[in-house]
């Protein structure tokens, strides 16, 4: 009999339904007379809401789409092959190659490739700008790239950096108005910024509850349930979903509901996983392992801060005593470039964040995906591993790629995991 009770997430179906609706919205945008805008997920959702209202546009999140193709083993192979056939290097970002392949083949999981009307892209890693400018040239459509030189860690950069972003935000508003003929609405923008803050607060709060023993949400579920904040963190729908999930997490913690019934070892897993091989998480569960989180996932759109002694904690950026709703669009824009705390792709931020998790989330070890398919999240991972080792935490690595199965050797990865489990004194509880 299992040590702890387990239960599927009640809001699982809702998460799936939201995802289905988003992609349905993308595929039917034209029929519905909506503009389809593509680009990697970021704060541009707030600008687009300011422009067209939460329901007035469809947004194709290029990373969510790239991830979906990565998990689709058949289509992935064809997309990657097509991109390489056209002479692009196999060491480019695998999400991008999948996306490009899908565009070049004019094929998606639901029919034709969803051709966007505009690209709006915050360049939070080296790949992003090239991703969309190449596609915009290929499709002959306009593209706006926001230069985010320090991977969203605006607070660290101080005034100039924020101002640089704000100036680009102003340009973007003018550009969007010009290319869509629509008028930007300050109120809608402010509303979406507040929604963005609320979902960020909720996601950090949710991930913080994973400190509990047993762990209420395994990392594989975390990836699926975080989709709403990746795609539409600025929307009222995401606020509703994250509120439901937060409440459900509270219940799970109160009732001692576990993600893994025989939890006996808690690991950090970091870097984006190989989406076509998520079964490695189930494989580890057979050893009683629950992966509780990592920088990739927990630090998505989320509100974190550090205490004076360096401890990581979820914070509230909305609704605390004395909080004031942004009074105009410029204040809202400044709010948008504040907070975050996870520092997303910055290696230093990744190390600080991961050490924070290692300290307070009851962690027994860490497993890192040495991911050939993503430069952004791979930066600085070895330094994080060394920092964890210095802390005395057992770590191990496996090689692969987020979205290119050519870089995956299942037998070797499982063998590596077996070795790591044995070194942690774990044996298989079931076969």
């Amino acid at each position, binding site marked *: 009999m299992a040590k702890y009770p387990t239960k599927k997430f009640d809001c699982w179906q809702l998460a799936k339904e939201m995802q289905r609706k988003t992609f349905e919205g993308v595929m039917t945008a034209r029929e519905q007379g909506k503009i389809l805008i593509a680009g990697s997920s970021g704060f541009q959702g707030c600008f687009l809401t300011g422009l067209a209202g939460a329901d007035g546009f469809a947004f194709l999140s290029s990373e969510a789409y790239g991830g979906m193709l990565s998990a689709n083993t058949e289509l992935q192979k064809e997309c990657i092959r097509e991109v390489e056939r056209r002479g692009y290097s196999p060491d480019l970002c695998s999400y991008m190659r999948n996306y490009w392949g899908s565009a070049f083949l004019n094929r998606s999981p639901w029919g034709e490739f969803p051709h966007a009307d505009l690209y709006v892209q915050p360049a939070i890693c080296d790949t992003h700008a090239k991703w969309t400018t190449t596609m915009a040239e290929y499709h002959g459509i306009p593209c706006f790239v926001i230069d985010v030189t320090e991977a969203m860690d605006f607070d660290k950069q101080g005034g100039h950096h924020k101002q640089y972003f704000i100036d680009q935000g102003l340009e973007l508003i003018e550009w969007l108005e010009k290319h869509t003929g629509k008028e930007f609405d300050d109120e809608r923008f402010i509303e979406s910024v507040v929604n963005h803050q609320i979902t960020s607060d909720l996601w950090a709060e949710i991930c913080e509850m994973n400190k509990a023993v047993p762990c209420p949400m395994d990392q594989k579920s975390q990836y699926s349930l975080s989709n709403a904040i990746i795609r539409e963190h600025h929307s009222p729908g995401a606020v509703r979903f994250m509120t439901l999930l937060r409440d459900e997490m509270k219940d799970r913690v109160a009732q001692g509901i576990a993600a893994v019934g025989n939890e006996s070892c808690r690991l950090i897993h970091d870097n984006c996983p190989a989406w076509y091989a998520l079964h490695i998480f189930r494989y580890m569960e057979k050893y009683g392992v629950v992966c509780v989180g990592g920088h990739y996932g927990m630090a998505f759109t989320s509100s974190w801060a550090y205490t004076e002694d360096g401890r990581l904690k979820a914070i509230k950026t909305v609704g605390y005593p004395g909080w004031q709703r942004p009074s105009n669009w410029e204040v809202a824009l400044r709010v948008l470039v504040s907070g975050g705390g996870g520092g997303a792709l910055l290696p230093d931020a990744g190390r600080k964040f991961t050490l924070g998790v290692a300290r307070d989330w009851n962690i027994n070890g860490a497993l890192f995906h040495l991911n050939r398919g993503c430069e952004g999240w791979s930066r600085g991972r070895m330094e994080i591993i060394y920092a964890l080792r210095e802390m005395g935490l057992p770590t191990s690595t496996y090689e692969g790629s987020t979205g290119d199965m050519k870089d995956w050797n299942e037998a070797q990865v499982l063998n590596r995991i077996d*070795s790591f489990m044995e*070194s942690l*004194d774990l044996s298989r509880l079931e076969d």
Partner: protein
Amino acid sequence: MITAGIDAGNQTVKAVILKDGAILGHSIAFVGADTEASAQQALDEALKMAGLSRDEVGKVFSTGAGRKLVSFVAGNATETTCDARGAVWLLPATRTVIDVGAEEGRAVRCDAQGKVTDFSVNEKCGAGSGTFTEAMARALEVSLEDFGQMSLGSQQNIQMNAQCVVFAESEVVSLIHAQTPKEDIARAVHDAIADRITSLTHMVGMEKEVALIGGVARNPGFVDALRRSLGCDISVPDDPQIVGALGAALMAAG
């Protein structure tokens, strides 16, 4: 109690028979298309050497890349775990085990009981494995045995830049055309593998004593290169290939 360990590797299967702290028999067989049959053959040969029949053996454990393909065993454990167990049993002062086999190079740090405390594996790059030496010996048209011995006679230190088997082979050919003595080329090849293995070893935080096991440990040219690269002495047990199988036999004994 009599136990047996089987190490089903990529090129060979090794078997060890163990009784009350003594190795009674051991064997090495090439892996054919049927791993199970090769494992059976290796076990039979080890039993023959021990003068025992199958019925007299209690538990059998397997290890190695093909460990799950051997169905007649009571349990299995990874090479990492078995290497550490076997090496510390043979050479009790060992705290770092380096295993260089046909297709993998591995560094394992362990405690006095042979329990793994950290490990690192090179599995995707040929430059950290025996296959690399074999390919380079072929390029020089010498036997693997001569290749190892030959490098000890090298008079000058030359650098090999390529770390990939394919590119290294063409570099070796260029060196031959430049009339570089074979001894120096052999040493350069061993130095290249040794440097790769050294960086793996430093990843786990090398702790003395260091033991070298696996098929490549029988190559004196590589042993010399690794000693120089690590900057310390390394111990090589008498039968370095069977240490993983020995570890499996020890696991079977409990």
